[in-house]
């Protein structure tokens, strides 16, 4: 007996008919059965933002998401607002909609509904306007009028929704079962019983199966309703981050010495991606270009991994074993990430090189943790992504730095040694030669970051 997927849509409760595929994308459902065609499909891969809708949280927060990547089962218990759900006080267009129109911020208009929703979220959430727009491509305007409109927007003070209570549920459709456990015990039981089921954290990677590849996975276990996986706690030594906590909700925790990690995560995908995407997902997919992985390696992060058999701890470095391979057993889930803070005297630097600054996948990423004592590099942990089959530490480069005087020759030596550590590929993100040269450049830049903290050292700092 299937439960029914239920959520709030533009403030009104919706209960989907039994038999609705739980892996149908929210976008397909909106444009099809719901008849709401204001939300557009531009790419079906979560990059263009034409399908942006907003998840309204009980605390009033607004999280824009790509409706093309979100599966209906994931939406259970959520509150969704689409462009049709924005109205002004007199029932006419919402001020956000008016302002964009009046600013000449639309030309062809196909991206506009998505930009409206990103802007509506931004009006409440605030922050860097480029960050708010990183997930929304516009091919016509050149963005200037959109940014002008964004700068003039104010929160409409609309009250938060009262979210439906969603307990453990299971949605079935022809040939499909979608588990939506609401407790850790239930999750571990399901995981043991269905080791072949796909674990769905944010779905920003897995969502492509449904969206772009039009597949209907047979079994899915969604992680978003398990409280333990959503928790974050912190102390002076570090953070314990629930594996399914979306990046967007992790960011406020990354303060002090972890601020460079926060700055990096603000370039991971877009707000839409960060509203759903999770650190656990980044680890689980174990992509060689996962943005967060070098940072976890440099900081010496550890994992808590759970199964019905019990719990175990594992360093991230041991967890990653190869190209998209990990030590996660078929009955296990990642419970939490233990992220140490840089200690006093330690410097954390996080780097990412891509063709476009925002919302691009790294050609090369790097994370460097240096301990400096008495003008020498007392310890160095250097980790790179995009430089081999998996994110990994650069041991030869580390050795070249460790113990050396904090001066340019040591970093030149590390850059030279790096060639022994890495085996990059050539592809559309960069040639092997470029990747090596650029990664060496990051080590040289590391020197200047320490030697000349007074200088802007990135073009985006100018």
């Amino acid at each position: 007996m299937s439960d029914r997927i239920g959520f709030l849509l533009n403030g009104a409760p919706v209960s989907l008919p039994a038999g609705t595929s739980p892996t149908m994308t929210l976008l397909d459902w909106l444009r099809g059965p719901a008849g709401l065609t204001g939300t557009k499909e531009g790419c079906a891969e979560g990059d263009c933002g034409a399908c942006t809708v907003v998840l309204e949280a009980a605390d009033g927060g607004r999280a824009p998401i790509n409706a093309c990547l979100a599966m209906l089962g994931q939406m259970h218990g959520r509150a969704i607002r689409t462009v049709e759900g924005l109205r002004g006080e007199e029932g006419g267009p919402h001020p956000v909609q008016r302002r964009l129109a009046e600013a000449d911020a639309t030309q062809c208009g196909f991206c506009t509904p998505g930009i409206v929703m990103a802007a509506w979220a931004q009006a409440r959430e605030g922050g860097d306007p480029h960050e708010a727009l990183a997930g929304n491509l516009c091919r016509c305007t050149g963005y200037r009028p959109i940014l002008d409109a964004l700068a003039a927007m104010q929160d409409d003070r609309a009250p938060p929704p009262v979210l439906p209570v969603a307990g453990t549920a299971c949605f079935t459709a022809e040939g499909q079962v979608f588990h939506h456990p609401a407790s850790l015990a239930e999750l571990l039981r399901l995981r043991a019983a269905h080791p072949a089921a796909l674990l769905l954290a944010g779905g920003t990677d897995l969502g492509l199966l449904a969206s772009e590849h039009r597949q209907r996975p047979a079994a899915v276990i969604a992680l978003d309703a398990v409280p333990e996986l959503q928790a974050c706690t912190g102390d002076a030594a570090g953070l314990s981050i629930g594996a399914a906590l979306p990046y967007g909700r992790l960011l406020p925790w990354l303060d002090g010495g972890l601020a460079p990690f926060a700055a990096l995560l603000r370039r991971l995908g877009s707000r839409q991606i960060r509203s759903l995407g999770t650190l656990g997902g980044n680890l689980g997919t174990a992509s060689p270009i996962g943005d967060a992985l070098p940072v976890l390696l440099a900081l010496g992060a550890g994992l808590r991994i759970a199964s019905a058999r019990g719990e175990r701890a594992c360093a991230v470095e041991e967890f990653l074993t190869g190209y998209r391979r990990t030590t996660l057993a078929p009955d296990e889930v990642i419970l939490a990430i233990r992220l140490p803070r840089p200690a006093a005297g330690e410097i954390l630097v996080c780097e990412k090189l891509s063709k476009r600054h925002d919302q691009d996948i790294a050609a090369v990423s790097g994370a460097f943790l240096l301990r400096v004592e008495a003008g020498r590099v007392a310890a160095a942990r250097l980790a790179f992504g995009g430089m081999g089959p998996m994110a990994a530490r650069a041991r030869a480069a580390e050795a070249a730095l460790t113990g050396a005087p904090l001066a340019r020759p040591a970093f030149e030596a590390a850059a030279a040694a790096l060639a022994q550590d890495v085996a990059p590929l050539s592809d559309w993100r960069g040639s092997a030669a470029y990747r090596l040269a650029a990664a060496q450049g990051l080590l040289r830049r590391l020197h200047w970051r320490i030697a000349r903290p007074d200088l802007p050292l990135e073009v985006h700092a100018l």
Partner: protein
Amino acid sequence: MTAHPAPPQAAARGMGAALRQDSALKHATGEARFLDDLPEPPGLLHAALALSPVAHGRLAPLDPAPALALPGIVAVLRPGDIPGRNDIASAGSNEPLLAEGMVEHAGQPLAIVVGMTRDAALAGAAALRPEIAPLPAILSLEEAIAREAWVMPPQEIRRGDAAAALAAAPHRLAGEFRAGGQEHFYLEGQIALALPGEDGEMTIHSSTQHPTEVQHIAARVLGCPFSRVTAVTRRMGGGFGGKESNASWVAAAAALAARHTGRPVKLRLSRKADMAATGKRHPFLYRWQAGFDGTGRILALDATLAADAGHSLDLTAGVVFRAITHALGCCDVPDVALRALACRTNTVSHTAFRGFGGPQGALLIEDVVHRVAGALGQPPEAVRARNFAGGENGAETPYGQALEGALIRRVWAEAQRDADWSARRREIAAFNAAHPTLRRGLGSMVLAFGISFGQMHMNQAGALVHVYTDGSIRLNHGGTEMGQGLFIKVAQVVASVFGVDVDRIALSATSTAEVPNTSPTAASTGSDLNGWAAHAAASAIRGRMAAVAAAEWGVPAEEIAFAEGQVTAGGNRAMEFGELARLAYMQRVSLSATGFYRTPDIHWDRAAMRGEPFFYFSYGAAAVEVAVDLLTGEHRCLAAHLVQDCGRSLNPAVDLGQVEGAFVQGLGWLTCEELWWDAEGRLRTLGPSTYKIPGSRDVPPVLRVRLLEGAPARSETIFRSKAVGEPPLLLATAVWNALKDAIGTDRLDAPATPERVLMAIRGG
């Protein structure tokens, strides 16, 4: 970001007013319907394409069985199912809709699979297993040149004796560089909905810049007269040239499926299929030799511009024509030989893209100027100015059309002043001397862009205007709305003729049934051509209405005035516009008229490669600043000051949007948008996750755009305005120039990705 004051000529509501795009608010509320948003007709079927995974090979007849075995598959259409001709060529011939016997590029359509649902059709297409015996493929321009593989004969524009002038020149340089292609990345992908009717009729809703070509090619594929096919376009979610010829075959495929099944069929390409199967901006390879003197005067230029046409002609003839007619930009070179090669490769057939070869052409002279400047130790802008057409130099292009030297000098002087160029130069020098790892650079660009279709016959347009008896007005013309603001501009023209508010004009979808035999909305000519055609239609009605009023009041028709919704004569006679419309009807006077326009005074001699093919030139200038990280190749445009000549702007808000949007699109072409084909000739950047168009942060934080003031067009254009769609894309060339300035390199291929910049810094 800065606000932009409206130019002084802007009136509140009429001609020259900064009115919004006609659908702006509907875009923002989601009410504006794009093709895929239309309510679906009962019985609708969906189509999907099977595409070739191989760049070149012999194709065995395709077995439909694997698709037909799947649930929900209605039909698998192969070349033999085409009742008319399997030919979707827009200009040449023999460009198949579905590959027959041979495949010529990866991504080429092989079959159309029709299903009950889109997912069924996609699954069916994916299930097909084409048998292709691979043949050697031509995958590079160098190889095509070596094999003399052309899609059309080389073209050449000559003046004087370039070889002799080169030999005699005090200094000589040679250069080679390349510019990549560009994916249009219209946010709305290609889509068509075909509805079969009675008596062999077919109505096709298409996201197209060229409804007439949709009509023609669908009729050719269906084997029916043009009169049986109606193509309709209300709006596109972006076009940029990508829906000039490519929309036609998508529409024809939908029409074929609709004819075959007798049911409505929608074909919406996935983003990946769209990027694999549709053409892009032509990549170019350039080789040149220049002779110059010690003052920087370029005396001779011999250059070859090789365009990657892909596997077929498509619109390449026009693209290379525009490339060689724009290869000297705003400059004069006395002795030139410019050759354009249209290379045939086993790649998707490249097509129109905003600028249509003009941006690629202009890179040539900019590269020469950069190198000459480097050789002489002069700034590039000084060398360019030394060679500006007009003044002490010749004013005629090598093909015999005069440029306006005064405007060239004026736009550059204004951009230089706006940017405070000399002060920036000093500040940048100081910064560069002090910073260990970052370098700033300055770059400029001055453009001269010829306006008119290179194909003379295409410079015509039609319009249809109805006035109803309540005084409301319906406007239709051959131009299509892709976001560029054409509909509001033409409505403003009609409103000004009738002296009414623009809100009185009802805009309607472009349709081959209303205005026939139209040209594509392309070559920046949309408002020039359709504005005049609509003006003619409205003026004809206005003339008839004026005669009615004159007779009613017993005054000469010349005394009748139309303004502010009123019709008046002298100071004491007035009636509402609608009242006069009703009176005209009662007197059995027609209130409907067609209008027609043909661009005057243009001509081209194909044999001599001479003439005056452009009605006029648009001019513009840019001064930009960039920063480069020497360690990583990362770079960023920090400031851009743009001056664009729009004549007397029909709508400064729309024109400003065109300038900004074109600049950023050009910035993408030259810096971050990289098409990456693998060794087997398959494009691997098939979506926005791998193909990176500019995002908001890539727009320079200082972006100041001015429309040139007090410069009405000298040609008799509509209200002395000038076209604006394409020219400002060339302004982004300043960014490429600035990057070269920052890193001090001779050669920097485009797109100048961080990788190319870093490798250029490292001398590789």
